[in-house]
């Protein structure tokens, strides 16, 4: 806004602003003083942006085109890292495909589940506050504690989950995290359990409380049943919220790391070797910093593409009120 104002006032009235006034975009002595204080207060973040964002982003683009192992310094090798990732790295495609499999299972269950929980909590049942707090608790568990306690819960022989499953007559419950065939489902289960009653649900709940009561009453007059009201009133009004939560869930799922790293270390036999784990091991276990930077950019581009696709396609089905 400050810039726009200046452009409108051409030629600038240099009362006593002078050069300094032009630089900071101010005219009077008072405005200059204020502008300078503005810069001073913004300074920590300006430095932060340069040191922890801008600089690192440029550096990591560059590292992606270098051979860089610690100890040592980066040596430019062009596209070699990317060629290696796409054609030679045995774990590149499998880890991408694991990540997508995880995302495909996690996102629908977590988002739909959160929506159903929110609808349930919006029915005015007694004890709603208590249940909301209880449903939210898993989301508060730090990732490492979450993974650790589920290692025990899913323990094939002693774990209470399989104890319950055997109790209800399932003879051979899965070995969960211990078996190649089921580890991915185990990790998905852990993440879904922790996410379903969390922020996603709270955002849905806020969205539901924003749906005007009159609309339900009008639908009631027209003889609409519960499902019809949900389908024709709640759902259309909630689509922006659903969309927002979907984007967040996809981004979160594609970055899945901590729970898998603690619960399975990516195993057994790479069954839960997600892309973020691949980046982490390349970078911080083998110290292939150049190659890992290239991998990180592959992930960044995938995330941006997904966000973009979701923003584009949403125009067809997202209902914004008054829009």
């Amino acid at each position: 806004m400050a810039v726009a104002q200046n452009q409108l006032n051409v030629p600038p009235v240099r009362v006593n602003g002078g050069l300094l006034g032009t630089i900071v975009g101010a005219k009077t002595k008072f405005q200059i003083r204020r502008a300078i204080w503005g810069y001073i207060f913004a300074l920590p973040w300006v430095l932060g942006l340069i040191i922890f964002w801008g600089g690192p982003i440029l550096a990591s683009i560059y590292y992606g085109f270098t051979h860089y192992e610690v100890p040592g310094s980066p040596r430019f090798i062009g596209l070699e890292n990317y060629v290696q990732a796409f054609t030679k790295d045995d774990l590149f495609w499998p880890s991408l495909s694991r990540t997508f499999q995880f995302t495909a299972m996690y996102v629908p269950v977590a988002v739909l589940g959160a929506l159903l929980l929110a609808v349930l909590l919006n029915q005015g049942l007694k004890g709603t506050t208590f249940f909301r707090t209880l449903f939210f608790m898993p989301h508060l568990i730090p990732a490492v504690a979450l993974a650790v306690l589920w290692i025990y819960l899913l323990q094939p022989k002693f774990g209470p989950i399989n104890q319950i499953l055997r109790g209800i007559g399932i003879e051979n419950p899965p070995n969960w995290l211990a078996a190649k065939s089921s580890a991915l489902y185990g990790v998905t289960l852990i993440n879904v359990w922790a996410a379903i009653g969390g922020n996603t649900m709270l955002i849905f709940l806020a969205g539901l409380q924003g749906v005007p009561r009159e609309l339900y009453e009008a639908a009631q007059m027209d003889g609409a049943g519960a499902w019809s009201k949900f389908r024709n009133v709640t759902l259309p009004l909630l689509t922006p919220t659903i969309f927002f939560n979907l984007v967040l869930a996809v981004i979160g799922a594609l970055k899945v790391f901590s729970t898998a790293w603690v619960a399975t270390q990516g195993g057994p036999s790479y069954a839960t070797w997600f892309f973020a784990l691949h980046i982490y091991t390349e970078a911080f276990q083998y110290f292939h910093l150049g190659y890992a930077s290239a991998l990180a950019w592959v992930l960044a581009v995938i995330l941006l593409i997904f966000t973009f696709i979701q923003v584009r396609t949403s125009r067809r089905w997202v209902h914004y009120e008054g829009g």
Partner: protein
Amino acid sequence: MAVAQSTVSRAGAAQNSWIEWLKQLGGRTGLYLITLFLAFIFGFPLFWTVMSSLKTPGEMAEFPPPWLPAIPQWENYAQVLFLPRIPVTVWVWNSTLVTVLVTLGVLITSSLVAYSFARFEYRGRDFLFMITLATVMLPAQVTLIPQFVLFFNLGWMNSHLPLWVPAWFGGGAFAIFLMRQFFLTLPKDLDEAALIDGASYFRIFWSILLPLCKPVLATLAIITMIDAWSDFLGPLIYLNSPEKFTLAVGLRFFVNAPDVSSEPMDHLIMAACVMYMLPMMIIFFFGQRFFVQGIVMSGIKG
């Protein structure tokens, strides 16, 4: 809704209203049953963890494992704090220290920066704010490696500095955005009156505006504390000796260290787990109102 439904049905034929009433009772009961089932799904693993942390090693190894400890072993919690080679007490201290420093840094610097964005006019301000919002789009993985190189060159490996120092540089886009939105709701007359009285800009910020920001500061503090306390990737990358660990990496070390003692440790691991998650639940319990507000605000942002 339920009330409206029953009034409508009362207006209908007598026998119809009976059926309606039964239907509704059934529906209501059904909803409660579903809710209780879900409460079991979300509550049981937590309950089981707490119960396991109170068992004896013998009870942990029994098959089939008992659901409840015969006598709750509260001394497990004392025992886990003073294990040889598993310095849980040190980890608790480290986690607390890092969490406090991160939270202070985020609160102080993000509110200063937000004050600048909300109340001052200078060239480049709106551009700077746009960049701030854009940083949210980029995944942390991209900046992680160069930051590692930076801290490595500074000689900050195996110290807590990489974990909390960045928080003192503005506290990140989310914090700045949240604070700025709040500053914009405060009337500008307040600043101007103080300015006329000769107060400095910093004094206006510190003595007049900040005290009015208590609710949003509480929101931000809770969200930041939970994030900092739970952070795993940062400590995993930067810390490598057990006496520097935070609880996140320490707990993982504990689980993966069977050679520490010949005694089975599972019940103590469960106790450490409970000790690690409990503070967050307590903070959430007392600050629930602020926390929910913050989540909803960040939702609206999108």
